[in-house]
């Protein structure tokens, strides 16, 4: 073993530039794999966000985006009358997508009592917006901005202060929540509100109540009723595409690490064909040659993996801090999970081994007298 380690290191250091180039080419493959795997993982997480709410939502039937929905107060009163024993409460919500300080954010405004008690919002830090020009923000927003409690942001010409951080049980959108009164003071009441929320009694069946409301002409003349969860799905139709894309990304990343490692190691060994041949002539059996060359390739692969992992980690950390990615106000969080890192390492080593195996295997089919060439 001592001889093996000694000759391997000596060989690698003597071959400095070639070793370095091999490490760099392998590291590029490793970085590609880890970034693709991280992106794929982020898409999967994005698509898998679920919502536990049993609320119903009423939206303008012709609106593709909730922002284009305009509903009158009368529609909430009608809903309460249609199924009075199954509905606990109804309340309006203003909804906008706005570019605030370079970030596309959702602005939501609901009555404070409903915000605290009827929506699936959990206060993580700080306090609910109690006074004028106050707001809470989701932890999803914190991930894509540098905002914190106390931050003041200008929305539609008015300064709002962040008083708390909340988490919703559904998709982790980057959202700002303010009171309905504050929302009306910003956007006005001329166009009504965008989303009507219907809170059901615990014993009510959301599907049945939805069907009842949807079949009533007072509702279906203007609006459509959705489960809050299915609206999230409708709103996030992009999720399915992202999920498909994540699968493609995962396959590409696996191919990158597989063929990239194999090619880099095979190329490195092919360049050393003359020396491998000489060792074979001197009496090194294929098994001994394979052990030596595999050790050499293992050193290169581990060095490259370490470098590649470091670069990928630095990139993801930098990106998370300075250039976060979000899709429709929902942050796409890149990370380097241990499972991807370990899978990449195992694949790299396996395919380095395969490269060695095939290269030394071809020795028996080579003309050893080629050494004189």
């Amino acid at each position: 073993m001592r001889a093996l380690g000694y000759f391997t290191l000596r060989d690698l250091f003597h071959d400095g530039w070639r070793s370095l180039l091999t490490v760099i080419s392998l590291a590029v493959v490793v970085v590609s794999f880890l970034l693709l795997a991280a992106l794929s993982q982020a898409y999967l997480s994005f698509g898998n966000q679920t919502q536990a709410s049993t609320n119903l939502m009423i939206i303008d039937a012709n609106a593709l985006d909730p922002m284009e929905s305009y509903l009158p107060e009368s529609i909430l009163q009608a809903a309460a009358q249609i199924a009075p024993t199954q509905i606990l409460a109804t309340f309006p919500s203003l909804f906008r997508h706005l570019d605030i300080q370079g970030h596309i954010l959702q602005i939501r405004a609901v009555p404070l009592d409903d915000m605290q008690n009827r929506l699936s919002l959990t206060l993580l830090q700080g306090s609910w917006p109690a006074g004028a020009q106050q707001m809470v923000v989701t932890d999803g927003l914190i991930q894509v901005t540098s905002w914190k409690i106390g931050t003041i942001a200008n929305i539609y010409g008015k300064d709002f202060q962040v008083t708390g951080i909340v988490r919703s049980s559904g998709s982790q959108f980057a959202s700002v929540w303010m009171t309905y009164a504050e929302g009306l003071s910003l956007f006005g009441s001329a166009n009504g509100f965008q989303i009507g929320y219907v809170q059901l009694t615990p014993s009510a069946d959301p599907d049945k109540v939805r069907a009842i409301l949807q079949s009533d002409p007072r509702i279906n003349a203007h609006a459509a009723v959705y489960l809050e969860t299915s609206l999230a799905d409708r709103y996030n139709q992009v999720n399915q595409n992202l999920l498909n894309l994540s699968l493609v990304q995962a396959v590409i990343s696996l191919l990158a690490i597989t063929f990239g490692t194999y090619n880099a190691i095979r190329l490195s060994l092919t360049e050393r064909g003359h020396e491998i041949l000489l060792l074979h002539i001197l009496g090194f059996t294929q098994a001994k040659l394979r052990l030596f060359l595999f050790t050499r390739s293992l050193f290169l692969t581990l060095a490259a993996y370490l470098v590649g992992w470091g670069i990928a980690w630095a990139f993801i950390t930098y990106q998370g801090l300075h250039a976060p990615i979000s899709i429709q106000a929902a942050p796409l969080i890149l990370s380097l999970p241990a499972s991807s890192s370990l899978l990449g390492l195992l694949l790299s080593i396996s395919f380095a081994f395969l490269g060695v195996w095939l290269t030394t295997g071809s020795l028996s089919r080579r003309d050893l007298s080629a050494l004189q060439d």
Partner: protein
Amino acid sequence: MSKIENTGSIEASGLEKVYLRGSEKVVALSSIDLRVKAGEFVVITGHSGSGKSTLLHILGGIDRPTKGELSVNQIDLTGISEAALTRFRRDNIGFIFQFYNLLPSLNALDNVIMPFLAKGFSWKAARERGAVLLEQVGLSHRQKHTPGELSGGEQQRVAIARAMAIEPCVILADEPTGDLDTASANSIVSLMENLNQRLGITFIIATHNLHLVELASSSYELLDGRFTQASEK
């Protein structure tokens, strides 16, 4: 290293080597019969392309004949497996090449101990023996130098020390002085002659060097893959 007794004989009969160059058959060796006694100093001459290297490669188990029978040190090489051929080379044959074929990343001592490691010697034992061998070829002071830091003559001495490492019964040398100046060539010739006489190692040398021909116990001339002339002293 003690004198090797009665090993290193070579018997070849009807050796033929045919290469395929595209669809064309090239006869590299034809009807080669050779009998070398243990401890002989044999020289093979011939023009470039006459088949000298091919013959040495076949005798050393680097290449296989297309036809014919061959035994070296009473080991029948006809039809033996690749693994057995590797072991045969490792245990019986030392090789010296025109261009030395030293591993450029290793120093002189490391190059010499490679055959020991191939044979499974311990690290310590291999280095001790390697140092002795370098001393025998007059290079104990150059142990730590890499091939790039050695002259042609010194590199060939390292190659000879490496060839002697496993105490071979046969050393096959292909143009061992072909890349050297006259003084270095003479020094290498003296070293090989000394090893042959002192240790009884059989030498088969392919060369153009007339000095080696004069020293040979028998010599053969190859022309177009056939022996045209043989002389014994």
